[in-house]
């Protein structure tokens, strides 16, 4: 009998022991890794949940665009308001910029969270040219009217004033239905064409019968920008009003100067300054997108809010704290741009460009351990296909492996007008 292991037994037992220890080590290591991965996934889950909640909250709060310590969209225009003349283009003079080229006047213009008391003066303007009339056409409007009843004749569309005063070469139907300029407009009177048929303003004034609708539309457009305009207008409102620059008698009238739709650039076929480039701001001349004629004139016929939003898209934009002057200008020019690309380039192209230009992701956990994932949330607010879209983006980026996970979802919530009412910005 022997009391000890043989050498072979010892060697085998040693080998087995090593295998067992190795297995245990591997198992333990796997367990530790599994726990780490589980913790990691759990952390990501919690961050995604936080991002989801932040994005949904942003839809209602609008805090990225307006909160007590950050009010990028509450410009206080100096001097009350900036006179925005209707665009004016002749063969020799191109004064078609209703707003400053490149958006350099963003600080002079009201922005979507500017109170109406600052953006919509209710007293006469300094440069009024005659009693009861002012250059902007806003002063007599009595400020924003929240009523807009369907049975109120003041809200009814009175046809297009341009149907009379157009220079004939630009309007092919030659206004066969009458002198519509007398029915409605933002000004209280209009200089009649003289001599008849020339398309040139004379000195004789005729009163305009209805100004309420035109002034409300113009006031909203001026005071809020285009996203705000479309937010405030009823669904069936016509985006069309007559607003002739009657300070300048004796000059030719062109169709580009008389309509809201003409606030932007004139047609530049082939070099259209689509969203994000170019030096002009204003609505594109592709309101309906049905070809060259519509683009050229800002539509030879009027369309409703919904018609515009069928083929066009707009958004609202701000900038984060600490943004550069260039960033501010670039972002705020978007308040007065509208892209509609029918017949020019793919819808997806301009809409994607708009969508990616509107917002900045908010880092929800700015002070975090370096190995923690970054989670961001943002809401991009657009109007497209006749709908108000609040599209939420929640992203989580893992600094260890570079993987990005993005969740995109639309949320119905507080509209711009709702946000402004909550802040008391619509009070008269």
């Amino acid at each position, binding site marked *: 009998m022997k009391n000890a292991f043989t050498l072979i037994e010892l060697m085998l037992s040693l080998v087995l022991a090593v295998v*067992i220890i190795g297995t*245990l080590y591997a*198992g*333990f290591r796997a*367990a530790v890794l599994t*726990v780490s991965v*589980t*913790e990691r996934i*759990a952390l990501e*889950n*919690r961050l995604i*949940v936080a991002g*989801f*909640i932040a994005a949904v909250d942003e839809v209602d*709060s609008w805090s990225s665009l307006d909160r007590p310590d950050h009010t990028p969209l509450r410009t206080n225009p100096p001097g009350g308001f900036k006179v925005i003349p209707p665009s004016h283009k002749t063969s020799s003079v191109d004064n078609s910029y209703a707003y400053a080229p490149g958006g350099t006047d963003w600080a002079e213009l009201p922005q979507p969270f500017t109170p109406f008391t600052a953006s919509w003066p209710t007293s006469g303007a300094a440069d009024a040219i005659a009693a009861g009339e002012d250059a902007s056409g806003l002063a007599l409007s009595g400020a924003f*009217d*929240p*009523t*807009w*009843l*369907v*049975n*109120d004749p003041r809200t009814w569309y009175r046809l297009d004033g341009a149907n009379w005063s157009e220079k004939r070469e630009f309007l*092919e*139907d*030659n206004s066969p239905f009458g002198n519509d300029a007398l029915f409605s407009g933002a000004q209280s009177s209009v200089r009649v064409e003289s001599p008849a048929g020339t398309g040139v303003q004379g000195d004789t004034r005729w009163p305009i019968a209805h100004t309420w609708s035109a002034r409300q539309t113009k006031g909203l457009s001026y005071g809020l920008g285009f996203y705000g305009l479309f*937010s*405030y207008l*009823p*669904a*069936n*409102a016509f985006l069309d009003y007559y607003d002739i620059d009657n300070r300048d008698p004796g000059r030719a009238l062109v169709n580009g100067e008389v309509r809201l739709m003409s606030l932007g650039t004139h047609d530049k076929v082939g070099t259209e300054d689509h969203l994000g480039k170019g030096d002009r701001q204003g609505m594109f001349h592709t309101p*309906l997108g*049905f*070809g060259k*004629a*519509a683009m050229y004139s800002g539509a*030879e*016929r009027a*369309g*409703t*809010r*919904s*018609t515009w939003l*069928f083929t066009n898209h707009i958004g609202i934009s701000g900038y984060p704290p600490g943004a550069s002057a260039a960033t501010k200008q670039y972002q705020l020019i978007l308040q007065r741009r509208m892209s509609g690309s029918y*017949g020019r380039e793919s819808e997806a192209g301009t809409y994607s460009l708009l969508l990616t230009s509107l917002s900045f992701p908010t880092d929800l956990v700015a002070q975090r351990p370096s190995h923690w994932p970054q989670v961001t949330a943002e809401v991009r607010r657009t109007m497209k296909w*006749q709908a108000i879209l609040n599209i939420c983006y929640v992203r989580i980026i893992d600094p260890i492996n570079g993987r990005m996970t993005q969740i995109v979802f639309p949320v*119905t*919530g*507080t*509209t*711009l*007008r*709702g946000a402004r*009412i*909550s802040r*008391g910005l*619509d*009070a*008269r």
Partner: protein
Amino acid sequence: MTSRRGAVLIIAVGMAGMLAALIMAFLVRMRGDAQSAQYVVRLTQSRLMLHAALSYVQEASRLGYAQINQVSGLCTDPREGYGWIDPRDPALIGRDAETVAFSGRDYLIGPRDRTGNPLWTAGTWPAVGTSMRAPMYRHVRPPYAVRPDMTPNAIPSAESQPETFGIPFLIHTDPTPEFDPSLGIHNPASAPQRLSWVRGDGEVITGSAGLGWFRVYRETGSEADRPIECGPPGATFIITVGDGVTEGWRDWAEVMATPGAWSAFGDNIAMAESIYEQMSAAELRMWYRVEWSPAVGGNEDVAYMVAQDPNSPEDFHPQMGAGVDKDTFYSSYPLNASAFLSGQIYSANAPSLPRNFVGTFRYIQRLKRPPDSGKW
């Protein structure tokens, strides 16, 4: 030998312990994740209730006022409303004396029927100053349900069916009404089937109740904390949404004001109140103000506007005497007239766009807290 078996046992126990620890860690983590995601679920349910409430406000502006004979299942009074704010000129329907004024304008508060008669009784919903609540759940079979069958007249393919030579004869109504299956196959002349279709089966599907609710208060305009810029009274509503099981009761006092309502929460009043208060405290509630408008803008005008020359899509504008399809803006092709389509006018000629006949919303406003007036 005994010591070796002990070593194996120790190793096995160690590994089992490790597995158990792992499982526990997973379970604890999963529970934690589930708890943290619970708020997401509640938030989503509440937001769904907002959608439901908005849809209700839109539809109730016109629909839901017809009278149905509950014996015959036939409609005896096909009334419908003209909107929360009547879009008609009050004088034209002889209702000048019933108008209210806002911001210098007179209008009629609705909904009213064709002749201008109010479709509400003073003091009860949907009169201004009243509220309704809508606990949400699924019926086994809702009233007026339609069978979710996309092809009730599919081409027969089984050999046992009569030969139809590949023709889908329209032998079944499309869509097909859903009624009590015990009443046999659909017979449009069957009164019992129609009654069953009208009534539906109101039994609540287990598991669908207690997940969400909404309630709607119709503002009078006299609420102390209501800004005037909110819009005309009668058109604005306070919508409250919740994700819990309180069925939309505002508070326990409101529960007790309705005879027998407390029994939904417990076997006796004290227990029911305690349960209600606990459930109420655990609920996620949100408040919104919305303004309804009779204005609709489903791009209806597109249906009248485009008659393009297929050979020259850019020449869409009218040219006097230029041809049948160029004379006016107001000629249009029929819907889905694919013969006129070209590469550039894909959406112009066949837009089936008119829609939305129940109004729109001017705005949605999330309120930070319940209205100070207590009216909601």
